[in-house]
């Protein structure tokens, strides 16, 4: 069993009242040829409903891998991942699909919009398969993209594309919104407005958000922060004084 850093144990006592993500002793390794890379070496983390969590860490530390397992697009080798009471780590392909469909909203670093669909149609991609989607106009209003809803992705700026991508994730009112480097391809100002938007989503819809970033400044807006290094949580803390995205600077 991997030894856990003392500081984490300290924070672990501050267990959220209503845990929505509960990862314990999650391990994952890749085998390429002869070489085995241990990417996650026993991760423990908890996030409460309605919180905003941030995963920090240098490149290659396993952030994306962890997110992907929580999001149900990848699976860990051992350990448990419980999301809203559902044990995700031993689901079959079919159940995983249903899990993603019902629970998770994704926001990607490179937006991943369907190029030949208009902005609003891209949002419909998800609305189309959700049981009780939020009203389209409301979502477009929320991401301030109502006037550009008929444009195609390549006619939008990166920030605008990310707004549409957030709208697409939010439209189904997911239990959990996973954002992997959502500002990774954006400039400073645009990044701040996107972070602000995520914060708004978090407060307006009460959506739990888990965000990956390597920008430490962004951690200031989170309720809970996990610092990853070489597949282990090196540090984790609860941020009692989460600030508004508009006040973050780097």
């Amino acid at each position: 069993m991997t030894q856990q850093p003392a500081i984490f144990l300290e924070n672990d006592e501050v267990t959220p009242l209503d845990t929505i993500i509960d990862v314990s002793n999650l391990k994952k390794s890749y085998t390429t040829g002869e070489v085995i890379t241990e990417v996650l070496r026993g991760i423990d983390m908890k996030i409460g409903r309605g919180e905003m969590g941030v995963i920090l860490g240098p490149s290659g530390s396993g952030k994306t891998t962890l997110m992907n397992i929580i999001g149900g697009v990848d699976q860990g080798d051992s350990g448990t991942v419980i999301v809203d009471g559902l044990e995700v780590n031993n689901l079959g392909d079919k159940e995983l699909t249903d899990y993603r469909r019902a629970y998770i909203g994704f926001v990607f670093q490179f937006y991943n919009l369907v190029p030949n669909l208009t902005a609003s149609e891209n949002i419909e991609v998800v609305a189309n398969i959700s049981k009780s989607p939020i009203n389209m106009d409301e979502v477009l209003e929320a991401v301030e993209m109502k006037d550009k809803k008929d444009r195609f992705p390549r006619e939008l700026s990166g920030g605008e594309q990310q707004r549409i991508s957030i709208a697409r994730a939010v439209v189904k009112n997911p239990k959990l919104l996973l954002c992997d480097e959502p500002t990774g391809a954006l400039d400073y100002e645009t990044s701040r407005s996107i972070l602000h938007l995520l914060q708004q989503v978090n407060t307006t819809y009460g959506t739990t958000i888990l965000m990956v970033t390597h920008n430490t400044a962004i951690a200031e807006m989170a309720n809970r922060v996990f610092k990853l290094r070489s597949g282990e949580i090196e540090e984790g803390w609860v941020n009692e004084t989460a600030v508004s995205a508009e006040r973050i600077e780097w």
Partner: protein
Amino acid sequence: MTLLRKTFRTMRENKAPYLGAFFMVLISSMLLVGMTMVANNLELIFNALSADHMLGDAEFSVSSDLNISSLEEQTNASIEKSSVADVELPSGQTLRIFAANETLNRHAVLEGDDLDEDSILIDPLFASTNDLKIGDSVDIGGKEFSVAGTVVLPNYIYVIRSTEEMINDPSKFGIAVLSQSNMAAMPGTSDFYAVRFADRTDIHEQELSFRSQLLAEGIEITDWESTTNKSMVTFVSLEITTLSTMSKVVPGMLLILSVILLSILLKRMIQRETAVIGTLYALGYRQSELLRHYLLFPLIVAGTGGFLGVLLGLAMVSPMLNFMLSVFPMPVDAYQTNYAFLAIGLLLPVIVLSLVSYVVIIRLLRVSPADLMKGSRVSEKTNFIERALKLDRFSFNTKFQIREQVRSLSRTGFLLFGVIVATILLLYGLTMQSSLNYMLNEGIAALYNLKYEYVFNDLQTDSPPEGFEQFNGVYVTPDQDTSANFAIIGVFPQSTRIQLKDTSGDKLIPDRVIITKILADKLNVGIGDELHVTNDEDLKAYTLTIEAVADSAAGEFIFMPFADLNQMLDMPADAYIGIWGDEQMQFPEGALSSTKDMDAVAAGIRNLISQSSIMVYSLIIMSFILGLIIIFLVTGLIIEENRNTISLFKILGYRPKEVNKLILDSNTIVVVIGYLIGIPVLLISVTAFMQSLTESMQMTIPTRLNSWYMLLGFVIVMVTYQTAKILSRKKVNRIPLSEALKAGTE
């Protein structure tokens, strides 16, 4: 060199579409070379036979003997008197025996020795079918002749008993040649003349003036048959025309398909390689070098496909020609390899494919290197239709599928055109069968209420045999179209033998001038129009006013009241030329000019239908395969273009079934539209083909496609489509989630 290696690697990674294009080019070249060379050689052989053995331009009988030499001089023609007799062999078959001519329609010995006074020559198909070998003896009217060899007559290449029969039956009927002296000694022969004009242009005009000449000399022509109307000869030209038309149409369509396919592949490849192209530019590569690299793709496909196609085409010439020659036996004096066709088969795909590719590549490479290096994708613009589409009222699935089709118009065009081609191939044979069936059931059976038709050599005035109804008739040629001769039939208004209906299905009584719809359409006349015609016998001119149109598919006729016709022809009121009835009759030798057994006519058509079944089935299989390839390639292209989207949809929680539906079902509407467009295109082309048949067959087949066949075609097309979809499903399922997760990172 590195770029060449890259070319092959790219092709290997995209096997299916490149193989598809390769095979289309291959089949296209193969058919082009094979079929044109067969058609060409068949034509050469036929022309050689016609010229060397002096094919007559017409055959005729007259009431009195001709003064041949003076007539030859006056009309600048060769004329030869000949004789023919139908002899029943002891084994039951009928042998039509011709006298060996000296100038016109001279026989050609195919195998064995020429005639002498003790021998006979027999047509090869009859000989082989009835197991007659050279040296065997045959009993002709009580006299034994030994078979000297096999023979063909230039005026009787396709051995059928009569024009109505259409399909040969060598187990029952054949032809033979005997020396003139043996013929003279034989009982029951009838004489006829053959004529061939020295001037080989305007044959039809010369025929007319030849006949006026005879009339002027007071000679009555009792029977006249232009060689251009004689199925025994024209079927050969028909086959040649059909072959050479097919040899252009089918390869042409396949070539167009392969051109579109390659353009799509090139476009996709260049778009995907934008960054590479930018880098190569930056490294100092010139546009011409890149152009050369991308041109390699069509060159390899067209070059190898064309080359192999030409080889296979060459290989199929000989067996195909031999097959043709077994049906239309002719002496092969010269076999020509037409190098021009070889060159065309080889170069046409290369030129067409590289030309189109050149245009596509140049257009795509026009982006400046600077833009390219910035990574702006080559001409991946939103096209005007995509932009103009207002899809708000549709469901998401519909929207997505419409956008998917509109996104790549060339891909949609490829699918549409491919389905049209497959539909045409699929329904071509079925339409032919359906048309023949229609002619048989709705046409002949509906029009004629009789079993036998007897036409006499001379006008009759006695009352007809019990149960028979008399009719009169005359062959005329309309002034507006000298190639379209037809019969005007005089029938009693109270006739029970002829049953006519108007176009709305109501009974038409023949108490006025009625034209069959098929003839009205051909001559483009309607009710109230005047028709100027010339009597084929005596060349007198008449004018008829059309009073009704009959919806009959039986043929090209004008029916008018018996009395009116006789009056118009200036004949006695009770004169008739033929009778209709239900019983078989015996008439004195030489009294009849023709006998029509309606059951035999029907049997002939049924025979034709059943013989065409093999062709129909092979066309169906061919179109199924072609359709499968095309739809499979298109779905392959769609899946390739949508890898990222498919992966994304999976991540977002779409189930495999839903992804398949979105991606693969978008083709459904295009396939259906393709089928629907295919039908009228097919009907138009079949009608055109039937028109060309009319000229050599002496009958008009109305184009009909019955709705069951249409439904059957639709089912086959949809089964093809579903099969291609099932084959493609695995491809969709194999696309990993990581595809979209990594998007943008490379």
